[in-house]
């Protein structure tokens, strides 16, 4: 029997003036590390809270291993939560915090002691059982919160941006630990975050949410490499969007026209015609020397800026088609071969270009600049 399989069916939550979650459908198989990713206000936290039981859905189903728990009180669901601010009970010490759920379940004292001990070991906090939560660091509190939830052997563990309050270095360490923990314990983790790097790093699969809807679901690689909507392309990493006109589409390859240049792109199953957008990731954009032999998918350009980021080098190029595109070049230690103001040839490999339906009202060149700043800030 599958344990920890979640299925959301037309799940909706409406508040007085806004629809936070709009009839979403989602399936999370048991044992998966699944992330809900999106900007604030997209509905991911509300969805999580409905699964936990703190919000009642307006309509829809929440199926946990086949049973609809949408209207079951939270204390009767086999689901546990790690809260954003940990919510460790201040009046109890670490041991009593972790033992809390076991005491509610009226387990015998000996069993409680054993299980709490194991849980502390799991999160590497053995020996901390007498401490009060105020005496712990942020990272330690987070681990206690984890232990407290995991000790109850839930079918699903819900995590509401648990690393948000920690500094960057600690976050990275704990991301790795959390992922390892999930694989060790083997239960379903449902992880909510607005940090796309976090989601990409940790998840088996993820869902990108926006405005109460799910835009795309898939493995990190698929969602990153093959965004299906403009929003997804833009939210995950730097996108290098360009406006284009469809010439032909097919599942094997497409042809688009960008300001006089005809480019080949990857095939698409989307039904797109007329105006569209094409997207290419910075690390796939190739720079060739000016004067290289022209060929398919080659566009001349002028180097606007070179930004040294340490492990990589960002090269912002103004393409002949008009947009500012960002290329990411590995720092091989051989110096920076690109100079500001010099001409260059851009190669957009066909299998790196993706066609997307056009969004409403965005200016590609502005996008390019924003992406440059975002890229500089993120690296």
């Amino acid at each position, binding site marked *: 029997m599958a344990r920890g399989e979640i299925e959301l069916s037309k799940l909706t939550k409406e508040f007085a003036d806004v629809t936070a979650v709009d009839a979403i459908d989602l399936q999370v198989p048991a044992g998966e590390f699944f992330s809900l990713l999106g900007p604030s206000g997209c509905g991911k936290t509300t969805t999580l809270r409905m699964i936990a039981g703190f919000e009642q859905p307006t309509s829809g189903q929440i199926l946990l291993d086949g049973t609809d728990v949408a209207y079951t009180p939270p204390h009767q669901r086999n689901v546990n939560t790690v*809260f954003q*601010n940990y919510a460790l009970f*201040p009046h109890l010490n670490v041991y009593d915090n972790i033992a809390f759920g076991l005491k*509610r379940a009226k387990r015998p004292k000996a069993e409680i002691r054993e299980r709490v001990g194991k849980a502390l070991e799991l999160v590497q906090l053995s020996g901390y059982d007498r401490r009060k939560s105020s005496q712990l660091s942020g990272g330690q509190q987070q681990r206690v919160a984890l232990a407290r939830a995991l000790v109850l052997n839930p079918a699903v563990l819900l995590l509401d941006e648990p690393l948000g309050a920690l500094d960057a270095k600690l976050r990275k360490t704990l991301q790795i630990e959390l992922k390892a923990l999930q694989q060790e314990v083997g239960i379903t983790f449902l992880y909510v975050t607005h940090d796309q790097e976090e989601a990409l790093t940790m998840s088996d699969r993820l869902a990108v949410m926006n405005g109460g809807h799910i835009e795309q679901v898939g493995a990190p690689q698929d969602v990153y490499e093959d965004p299906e909507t403009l929003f997804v392309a833009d939210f995950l990493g730097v996108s290098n969007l360009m406006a284009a006109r469809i010439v032909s589409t097919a599942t094997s390859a497409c042809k688009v026209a960008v300001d006089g240049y005809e480019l080949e792109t990857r095939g698409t199953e989307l039904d797109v015609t007329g105006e569209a957008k094409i997207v290419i990731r910075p690390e796939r954009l190739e720079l060739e020397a000016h004067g290289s032999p022209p060929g398919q998918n080659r566009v001349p350009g002028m180097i606007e800026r070179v930004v040294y980021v340490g492990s990589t080098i960002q090269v912002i190029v103004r393409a002949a088609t008009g947009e500012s595109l960002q290329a990411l070049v590995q720092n091989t230690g051989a110096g920076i071969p690109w100079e500001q103001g010099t001409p260059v040839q851009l190669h957009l490999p066909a299998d790196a270009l993706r066609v997307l339906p056009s969004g409403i009202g965005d200016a590609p060149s502005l996008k390019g600049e924003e992406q440059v700043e975002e890229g500089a800030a993120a690296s």
Partner: protein
Amino acid sequence: MTTVAESRPSEGFSTWSRLRGWLRNPWGKPRFLVLITWAYILWSIVPVLIAVQFSFNATRSRTVWDSFSWRWYWGDPVDSVWHDPTLRHALVQSFKLAGADVLIAVPIGVLLALGLARWRGRGSGVSNFIMLFPLVTPEIVMGVSLLLVFSELFTFIHTGTVAQILGHVTFSISFVVVIVRGRLFSIGRQYEEAAADLGASPFVALTRVLLPLLTPAIVASAAVVFAISADDFVISQWLSEGGPTDTVPIRIYSATRAAPLPSVNAIATIMMVSTLLIVTIGFLTWRAFTRGERRAGKAAEDIGGAFNLT
């Protein structure tokens, strides 16, 4: 300007330039403010200290000091607090009312705070309004209204201890609500949600998680209620039937115009020390409970904010 500079070419760091610098320093402490503050504090506290001092006076004078004596506390066989029945009864009555007030007003107030803080729906606004009203009503208006309601409407209640207790509780409830509600807000709902998440029924979440976390506020509000009740004059007087139902403030009031003895000072001192003790215990309890949770200054902010003292 230049002449001044020229005429003091090499004064160095003289007293004059230091003084000028001190007066002119934009971030320094203006001397005038320091003086006024400490003068105020002295003016505020010293008279009370003198009154306390005279409670230990060996003679009958409240104005001319003789020597130290416990006479007015228990020494004098007729007029000391211990021996004078009117003074003793006043002390007892004050403690009786304050104790009853705490025991009744705090539980009602805590429940009311919980209810008002989380009640959505019709009636919550009006109820909140009703709760706030006693805080802004002048005591004489409340005294008149209570006296009239007991003499014209609820005539089965006569003036006396019961009426006084009822009056005290009525104005105390709002203080409890405001203090507890402030603490409720700081706590938020995260702990109860965590408790429910871990399997606690709503009842358990309320009693085993929320109430313990409310303890500092409950203790603080108990201390505040005690202090307010002990200090109350108007309601106690209006609902008193004289004699043994007079409280310490009433005794002080009636004695002051006559030719009172230092025993009045003594009874006032006893009351004051008791109240200060209880308030200090309340405050320290609050501090002890919330030590890990926040900086010390925020506790004062919580209580102050609770009364909208901004």
